[in-house]
């Protein structure tokens, strides 16, 4: 026996009161309650959804706080997995062939910065430092979203934003320090100093790139965690 629209709304209403952060868990509970209620309706057609939830489902979940306990344990499992994933991702830059790439880019940029007196090259390097990685991230993000759209319609996860924000903050903090380091190494260069402090277009470009970087990183991390975290 299928549920009426009103009964579906009652299930959603009940779940909303549980304050579930994870969309994935919300959907899992929703499916469980509906399946369980539909099965029970075959035996007791007069059974009300509220009675079923309070007197049958809640005890099976471990009482009034049972749902909450499952939610907490789910968040804990996710928190641990997010940290593990961030750590592994961070380490991957220093692993195998990636170490050579990272080192190569760093040495090439450092060498050019240290030896060149050409302002165009210096400014281009600074912009490239922001723009190139960002272009790769945007491209990968687009491909990833496209593949999710095509291969897994309806696939959606939502995780605690605080965890994502923590790791995004670390990323932005590193970016800030990188920018500061670059500025300090070039501040004695009169032309650069003039460009950096007096040309609004250059300042606006840097601010714009930084803002775009923040937005991209946050979006990528959110989607990446949402969709890949527990399946990899």
């Amino acid at each position: 026996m299928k549920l009426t629209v009103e009964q579906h709304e009652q299930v959603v209403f009940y779940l909303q009161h549980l304050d579930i952060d994870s969309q994935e868990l919300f959907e899992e509970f929703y499916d469980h309650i509906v399946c369980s209620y539909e099965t029970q309706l075959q035996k007791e057609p007069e059974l009300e959804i509220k009675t079923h939830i309070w007197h049958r489902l809640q005890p099976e979940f471990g009482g009034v706080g049972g749902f909450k306990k499952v939610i907490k344990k789910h968040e804990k499992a996710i928190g641990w997995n997010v940290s593990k994933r961030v750590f592994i991702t961070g380490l991957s830059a220093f692993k195998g062939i990636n170490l050579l790439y990272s080192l190569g880019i760093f040495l090439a940029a450092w060498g050019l910065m240290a030896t060149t007196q050409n302002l165009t090259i210096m400014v281009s390097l600074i912009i490239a430092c922001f723009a190139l990685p960002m272009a790769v991230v945007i491209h990968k993000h687009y491909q990833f979203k496209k593949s999710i759209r095509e291969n897994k319609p309806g696939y959606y996860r939502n995780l605690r934003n605080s965890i994502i924000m923590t790791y995004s903050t670390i990323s932005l903090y590193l970016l800030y320090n990188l920018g500061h380091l670059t500025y300090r190494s070039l501040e004695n260069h009169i032309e650069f100093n003039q460009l950096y402090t007096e040309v609004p277009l250059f300042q606006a470009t840097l601010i714009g790139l930084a803002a775009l970087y923040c937005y991209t990183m946050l979006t990528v991390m959110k989607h990446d965690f949402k969709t890949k975290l527990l399946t990899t």
Partner: protein
Amino acid sequence: MSSSKLLKGSLATIVLKLLEENEKMYGYEITQRVKEITAGEFKITEGALYPTLHKLEAEGMLSTETQKVDNRIRKYYSLTKEGNAEAQTKVAELEEFLLNLQKLLNPKLGMG
């Protein structure tokens, strides 16, 4: 002691074994299958099942996929390669444990 308390330590093994036999299952289906196989003698509570599923998933033993069923999203669990190996190990461990338990509870069987 109720069967649910005895079941607690073996829940992960039961889940892994069921998923080994069935390609993919969802939460409610697992509870019903256990009830069906044991003729209602064993009853897995949802309060224990879901944390176990999420933990196994986080550990990489299970993978998930979602499907739209009757206009709602259903989350299916299936074994990963590691989960498959873990299922065999856990089942073997549990069988050995049960054998030893049987020897303790019924020493005559152990002698034979």
